[in-house]
């Protein structure tokens, strides 16, 4: 194998997932399935990414950005879990990958980027926190625009209203989940005991849907009813990404402890009292400064104290102005 290690850059994880992005998750899962020796860099800074998005696989000076490109590159380097499949099963992989892209992806794009509630409550805050300052101002907006274009151009049209598009997209996604569930049946993975690239893709698409705290979740509810799909996602998380689960549990424990220590009211704003005092102090001092500068309050220490000092001299210089203003007002 190559002497140089492959580097995979992905979006940071959350909610017990190694990454929040379906495509990053798919590539991560593929690498785990086949044991690719890859150095994973979890980041929120897409400055160096050629497309402004993740995943990016770098190896020998080349960068691969699309999931299909990454898969085919890894396959070319003889890393992959698809070699065990028969030609028929490989054909199924192509077909079901297309199904996911055609039916499930538009719904996910809609859910994350076009559904107002999810976008405001989950997506935008998350990316605003993850992406460093100047990029965070326009990257989420750009991604949102792309998602809107994609959904509207492929599923909508001039003669279809937004509501109809939305209904159509979610209906198709639910049907797609049903089809996947039928295909999976009672098997451990789609094609028996070994995970394939299709399983990686399915895991990538479904895991965020299952784990993220989504406010509007008709798709989430539908997914929960497909027991076998949920089982596969959870199995993969436990088997291949135990570190992230542990991280989440630790985070949860910490938060629980915190909320025990502080009264329930304050748990959301831990420094509430300090902030209130600071704000009050700031307001008071600002008012005092204004009052002093406009002459409502006059400080006449310098007039009483004749001792010459650098401080008093500055006071002296201002003093008359203050007095004048005071006089002018009176």
């Amino acid at each position, binding site marked *: 194998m190559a002497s140089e290690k492959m580097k995979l850059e992905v979006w940071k994880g959350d909610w017990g997932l190694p990454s929040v992005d379906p495509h990053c998750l798919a590539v991560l899962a593929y690498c785990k399935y086949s044991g690719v020796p890859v150095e994973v860099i979890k980041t929120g800074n897409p400055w160096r990414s050629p497309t402004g998005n993740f995943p990016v696989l770098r190896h020998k000076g080349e960068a691969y950005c699309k999931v299909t490109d990454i898969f085919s590159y890894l396959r070319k380097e003889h890393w992959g879990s698809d070699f065990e499949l028969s030609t028929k099963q490989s*054909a199924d992989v192509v077909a079901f990958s297309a*199904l996911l*892209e055609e*039916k499930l992806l538009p719904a996910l794009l809609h859910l994350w980027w076009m559904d107002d509630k999810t976008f405001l409550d989950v997506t935008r805050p998350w990316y605003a926190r993850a992406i460093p300052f100047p990029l965070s101002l326009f990257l989420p907006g750009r991604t949102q625009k792309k998602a809107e274009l994609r959904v509207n151009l492929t599923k909508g049209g001039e003669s*279809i209203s937004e509501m109809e598009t939305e209904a159509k997209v979610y209906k198709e996604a639910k049907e797609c989940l049903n089809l996947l569930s*039928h*295909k999976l049946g009672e098997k451990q993975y789609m094609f028996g005991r070994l995970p394939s690239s299709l399983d990686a893709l399915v895991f990538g698409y479904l895991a965020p849907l299952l784990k993220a705290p989504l406010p509007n979740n008709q798709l989430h509810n539908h997914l929960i009813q497909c027991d076998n799909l949920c089982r596969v996602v959870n199995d993969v998380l436990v088997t291949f990404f135990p570190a992230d689960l542990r991280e989440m549990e630790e985070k949860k424990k910490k938060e629980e402890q915190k909320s025990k220590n502080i009264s329930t009211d304050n748990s959301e704003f831990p420094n509430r009292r300090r902030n209130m005092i600071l704000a009050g102090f700031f307001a008071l001092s600002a008012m005092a400064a204004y009052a002093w500068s406009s002459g409502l309050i006059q400080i006449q220490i310098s007039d009483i104290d004749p001792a010459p000092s650098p401080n008093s001299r500055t006071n002296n210089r201002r003093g008359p102005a203050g007095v004048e203003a005071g006089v002018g007002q009176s």
Partner: protein
Amino acid sequence: MSGVLDFSEASGSSILSVSQKRSEDVILYQQYQVEQITLPDYAQCLAVEAFLRMSGLNFRVEQRTNAADMSPTGKVPFIQVGSQLIAEFEPIVKFASSKGYCLSKDLPDQSVAEMWAYVSMLDNILSNAEHYVAWMVPDVVAEVTKPRYGCAYPWPLNWILPWMKQREVHHLMTIKEWASKSLEEVIGEVRICLRALSEKLDKKTFFLGPKPTELDAVVFGHIYILLTSKLPGSPFNSLVSEFDNLKEFCKRIESTYFF
């Protein structure tokens, strides 16, 4: 099967179906096949026509120059049943199955899942490839697609409308990340798709089971177009010839259902 299909459509239909089944007048609208229709639309129309023929529905084809503008979604083909208009392949299939014309009702769930997966593979890869070749390869656009698309309109329109359509397809291809592909890459994608189909068909008469299904209709629509289209440089014709069983399949369907 029922788990896959939409219940809301199925539930309301039972009242209508009995009286309509016999004297049902299904009209399939499309553009003029010989002079006007473009490559991607032709494939879709053929797929629907094949489906209607396979399911044994009585229907007649109406050719209209403005079929795309008459369609509720702006896409051809669409069918008219009584006062209802239904456009595009999947909704038409679902509508027909709600009326009792379902080709895949005897199949196990897993086969149905596979069927729809392959249908969306054809939609995803072959439709995109057809759009790409028809609207993004300069020779084809100038010699075939634009003159055909504009043939029904008088002078300034026969220039403006194809141009607008081309821009629309460009946007669609860009957002689907196909615009940046070269023709070779597109042909590579088509080859992957055809190979998958060829594997799936193997030596069987139909793709799934002993009877034709929706998948057979869609495959026929696309493969027939790829085989018979006469385009400058003819990028696809030789490609299909690499897969003998698909070619045979196409001939078989044509001789059985189209005469």
